[in-house]
């Protein structure tokens, strides 16, 4: 049973994508297949999480090759949480794409590529093998390349060039790092690697050097401070359904890989890594939020906020206590949901108004009070206002920081929260509150067809807001689970024993 649950997050989207390819011209059929696949994914990933929560870490050996030789799939709480959240976001994106994406793009293989992207995300989260991790990252990267360039409008092509070049370099660094690790230790299985780096065979300095390769590679992919410039230059260019998906999910998968490797394998030289991560986290937060403050475009503000939020996740890894890591995990879950939802809301507004530029928008509150309420909930969650989900993540991180007396990073993070509220109020004022400059809003009425589309686009937004409210207002089970996941991460013996069956 546990074999099947581990494989389903990979197999369901794969078979779905293959099935979609048979109906290349029949977009309607692809849509039905897509939604069915998403429902299946949600159900199976939820069962995986329940199963892992009950029995602890589960593993399966592909092709029945025993652990250090074959490829292992591992699901602990952190990875199954990631897989579940990616399925939730995938569902929302699918519902949004049906009406929110133009027909031309949908006919050119949008659905199969999106499904393969989801398979890549699940694979990267579930694999227990270093090289396999690289391969899954390539799977999801190539799909995101295609999605960013799909349609070929000018800004898209320009964003794609930057995105492809920098991610190709990141993959090269990742591959070099894998080579170095294999050259020193002679294994690629993460569990065996974790055993071997703790023995005197491995030279700690060399292992740390290999770790820096991974820091650069995943740092580029998750947009950490000096390596984030590609993100605000490319993430806002594709249509909003694509933007929302890659913006919500991909950087967090990079963060997942970073947390996994730096809690399991590269833990020897913490006098170096912890101050380094602390500084990087602080700069990532500050630069991201300042960049957002200077922008005047709905999507670009949100893109810069991705960078800023990545800083919080890195902060948990930098503090390296159980509570801090639990905060990071909770924050990743919260951020995937909230960020995707904010992008989707900007898409709904743009569908109505035809623009993302703040100066052209306005009067949304007057005409669409429900949408405004949904934005209000998501934006306040992002900023971390108490009853909503962002607060709990920041609270855990700040508490963990105070416990080990790292006041500087905690105060930085709190100050950044304030500026986040500033950006969110800026969007609120310009898009929702202000009167639309050129037309009289009372005369501006939607056609019947437009109204139907608009109502349909609200469905995925409401779907995500339900989850955001759930993890905010009923945070107890999620936080407990995040704490258990953090304990599993810090107690590497559990992972090693589960994989190597000792």
């Amino acid at each position, binding site marked *: 049973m546990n074999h099947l649950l581990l494989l389903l997050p990979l197999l369901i989207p794969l078979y779905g994508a293959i099935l979609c390819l048979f109906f290349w011209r029949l977009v309607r059929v692809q849509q039905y297949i897509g939604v069915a696949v998403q429902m299946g994914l949600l159900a199976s990933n939820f069962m995986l999480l329940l199963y892992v929560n009950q029995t602890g870490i589960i593993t399966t050996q592909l092709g029945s090759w025993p652990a250090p030789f074959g490829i292992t799939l591992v699901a602990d709480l952190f990875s199954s949480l990631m897989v579940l959240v990616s399925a939730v976001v995938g569902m929302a994106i699918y519902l949004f794409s049906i009406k929110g994406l133009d027909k031309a793009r949908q006919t050119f293989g949008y659905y199969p590529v999106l499904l393969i992207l989801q398979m890549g995300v699940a694979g990267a989260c579930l694999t227990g093998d270093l090289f396999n991790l690289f391969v899954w990252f390539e799977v999801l990267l*190539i799909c995101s390349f295609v999605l960013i360039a799909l349609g070929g409008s000018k800004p898209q092509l320009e964003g794609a*060039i930057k995105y492809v*070049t920098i991610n*190709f370099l990141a993959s090269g660094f990742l591959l070099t790092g894998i080579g170095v690790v294999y050259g020193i230790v002679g294994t690629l299985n993460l569990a065996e690697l974790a055993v071997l780096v703790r023995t005197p065979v491995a030279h700690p300095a060399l292992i740390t050097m290999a770790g820096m390769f991974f820091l650069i590679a995943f740092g580029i992919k998750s947009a950490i401070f000096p390596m984030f410039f590609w993100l605000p230059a490319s993430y806002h260019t594709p249509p909003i359904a694509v933007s929302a998906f890659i913006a919500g999910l991909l950087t967090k998968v990079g963060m997942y890989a970073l947390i996994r490797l730096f809690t399991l394998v590269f833990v020897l030289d913490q006098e170096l890594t912890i101050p380094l991560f602390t500084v990087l986290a602080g700069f990532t937060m500050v630069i991201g939020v300042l960049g957002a403050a200077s922008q005047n475009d709905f999507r670009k503000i949100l893109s810069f906020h991705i960078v800023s939020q990545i800083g919080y996740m890195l902060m948990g890894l930098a503090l390296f206590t159980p509570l801090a890591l639990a905060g990071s995990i909770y924050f990743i879950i919260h951020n995937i949901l909230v960020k995707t939802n904010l992008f989707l809301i900007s898409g709904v507004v743009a569908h109505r108004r035809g623009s993302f530029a703040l100066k052209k928008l306005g009067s949304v509150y007057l005409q669409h009070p429900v949408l405004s309420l949904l934005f209000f909930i998501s934006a306040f969650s992002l900023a971390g206002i108490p009853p909503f989900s962002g607060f709990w993540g920041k609270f855990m991180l700040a508490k963990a920081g105070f416990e080990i007396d790292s006041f500087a990073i905690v105060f930085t993070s709190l100050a950044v929260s304030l500026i986040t509220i500033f950006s969110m109020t800026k969007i609120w004022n310009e898009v929702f509150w202000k009167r639309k400059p050129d037309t009289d809003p009372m005369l501006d009425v939607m056609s019947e067809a437009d109204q139907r589309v608009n109502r349909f686009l609200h469905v995925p937004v409401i779907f995500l807001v339900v989850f955001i409210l759930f993890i905010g207002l009923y945070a107890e089970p999620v936080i407990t689970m995040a704490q258990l996941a953090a304990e599993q991460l810090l107690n590497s013996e559990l992972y090693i024993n589960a994989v190597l069956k000792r």
Partner: protein
Amino acid sequence: MEVILPFLIGILFTSSLYLILHRHFFKLILGLILFGLATNLFLFVIGRLTRGGSAIIPKTEDMAVEPFADPVPQALLLTAIVIGFGIQAFSIVLIKRVYQSFGTNDLDDMNTTDQIEEKE
């Protein structure tokens, strides 16, 4: 041979980064290809070079006879070459598309997505 290869890898890495930093599209493509080559060669050399010993177990023995080449880096290398080929093919087509629709081959012209919209 083993002395030359590390230097070759170094030269490939530096020249590829130099080419990527260039403004010209064609040099960007060359740089990406050389970067892929450099990483692949690095992966190959780091698995330790053994000549003339394949890791195939003879019928008469229980395990492979020393000296044999480590098959794992070779397998990784094959995968990496295929993936790299795919990405390079994609980026060449992408760059061609960009050249066609922008009518320029200067990367410095590609800065519109970074610009900040004016406020009123």
